[in-house]
């Protein structure tokens, strides 16, 4: 394993939204070619491809992409890891470079969600004849969704947020809604976001209730989109142009965790422990303190989720997530800006793309190329995704110090 760092040479994301006139490979191609163009390299420089597309994980999306952008015979890894699929695709390229098997890799995440409805409702369609026969590991005789609690995503993450409210004071419906107020406001500065519309706290709290306390405006939409990144070894980067070196962003930590055994996680996914473990490991590897972070893109699939990750990522005082949003700590002009892209709530959540789109966002700020939404003088940023099941990816990125900047 090489001690050298791995760098992001180029990155790109498509406009997130509904792309009814384009197919999955159109979106993946745009992102892949965009990232290579951004890094000023071609498909012939790429030695490994990591491709993430959760709902098409058996379709060989990586190879389908090669057919459109260049069949060079390199290894392709098609990965699926719930909502951490994109981060996992990135890590396949990262690890290949770390292992010394390649100097340059491409990671692509893509998803077409369409109008997918609520995720997590399980299988549909019963047997034609209704007969109560115990099936599966729980010996259930019928679908239990809604009868033995809920496993639908808005409810699962509502329960995760309410559990935090139970354990710590100062958290209620209003604090959760404030998260969505912030992210919708942030999205107005991001032309690539699915929705770019500001909403008042009242509008958010009075929107259609999905699963208390998550209203419709506190849930991420189903979105189509793709994102990609070109990764390069430090040795190779040193031989590249001054401009490529200046724009390159260092991956100071790349961590993937799963959920360790915890008692209550048998009935409700524990999204906290694996996030805390990933964050702590990433901070240790990078030698970065949470206070050093200039911006964070975290996994706000629901407003209730974002709030608890303030604590899990150690951005606020332990137990103080409610107080932190009350004092506007995560706003773009606050203590540590969180989800200045608009987050999943406004930008959208094309599952396979999300874990690379947040890399795109942070890298773009570190390069000073984020336009109207630029966080001034950003030097260090963190990205976080979590997929139920569970998998958590955390990356810490730092502005280039390879080449002096003017």
């Amino acid at each position: 394993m090489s001690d050298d760092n791995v760098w992001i040479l180029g990155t790109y994301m498509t406009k997130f939204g509904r792309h009814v006139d384009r197919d999955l490979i159109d979106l993946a191609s745009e992102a892949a070619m965009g990232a290579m163009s951004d890094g000023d390299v071609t498909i012939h420089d790429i030695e490994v491809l990591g491709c993430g597309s959760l709902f098409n994980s058996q379709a060989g999306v990586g190879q389908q992409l090669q057919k459109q952008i260049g069949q060079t015979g390199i290894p392709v890894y098609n990965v699926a890891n719930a909502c951490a699929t994109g981060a996992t695709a990135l890590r396949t390229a990262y690890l290949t470079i770390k292992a010394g098997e390649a100097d340059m890799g491409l990671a692509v995440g893509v998803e077409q969600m369409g109008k997918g409805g609520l995720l997590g409702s399980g299988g549909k369609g019963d047997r034609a004849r209704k007969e109560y026969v115990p099936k599966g590991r729980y010996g259930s005789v019928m679908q239990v969704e809604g009868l033995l609690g809920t496993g639908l995503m808005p409810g699962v993450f509502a329960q995760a947020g309410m559990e935090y409210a139970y354990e710590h004071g100062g958290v209620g419906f209003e604090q959760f809604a404030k998260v969505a107020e912030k992210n919708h406001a942030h999205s107005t500065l991001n032309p690539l976001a699915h929705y770019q519309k500001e909403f008042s706290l009242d509008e958010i709290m009075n929107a259609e209730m999905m699963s208390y306390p998550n209203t419709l405006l506190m849930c991420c939409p189903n979105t189509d989109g793709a994102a990609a990144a070109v990764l390069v070894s430090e040795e190779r980067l040193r031989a590249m142009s001054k401009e490529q070196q200046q724009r390159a962003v260092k991956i100071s930590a790349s961590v993937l965790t799963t959920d360790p055994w915890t008692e209550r996680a048998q009935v409700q996914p524990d999204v906290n422990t694996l996030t805390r473990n990933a964050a702590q490991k990433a901070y240790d590897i990078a030698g970065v303190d949470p206070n050093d972070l200039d911006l964070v893109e975290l996994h706000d699939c629901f407003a209730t989720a974002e709030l608890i990750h303030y604590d899990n990522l150690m951005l606020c005082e332990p137990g103080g997530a409610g107080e932190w949003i009350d004092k506007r700590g995560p706003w773009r002009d606050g203590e540590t800006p969180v989800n200045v892209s608009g987050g999943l709530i406004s930008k959208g959540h094309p599952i396979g793309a999300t874990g690379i789109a947040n890399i795109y966002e942070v890298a773009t700020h570190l390069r000073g190329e984020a336009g109207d939404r630029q966080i001034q003088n950003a030097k260090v940023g963190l990205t976080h995704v979590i997929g139920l099941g569970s998998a958590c990816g955390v990356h810490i990125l730092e502005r280039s110090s390879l080449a002096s900047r003017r």
Partner: protein
Amino acid sequence: MGKQVPIVDYLVIDDGTPHLVAWESTESGALYFDRRNADAKSGTTGFRRRELGRDGVVRSFTIVQRGVPGIPVPYVSALVDLDGGGSVKGNVVNCPADPDHVSLGMRVRLTTYVAGTDDDGTEAVAFAFEPVG
């Protein structure tokens, strides 16, 4: 009355007052509702059946307004920490489904109801929780 079966095999309806049972690891004491190949905490394979308490505390809840077809909304889904050990997810019933009537830390007790009848007339009995006091 036709035959009755529990909706899941960790609900016991034919041995006194209806209650939940779990698989308990003989090594670590970890509790599971589903069949396990080994204990996810210790990696060992010894299990015994353990009867769980009927009373507990609402540790978290949500009120589902948009659910799956065929299930009336709103309903309350809750995570309940059972007295004596074990956590379970279930609906809170016999209580208005609004945040003024359901609260974190609320004490609840297991209850059962018939969730459906199949083509042979067999009834599926489900469990839920209701407020105590």
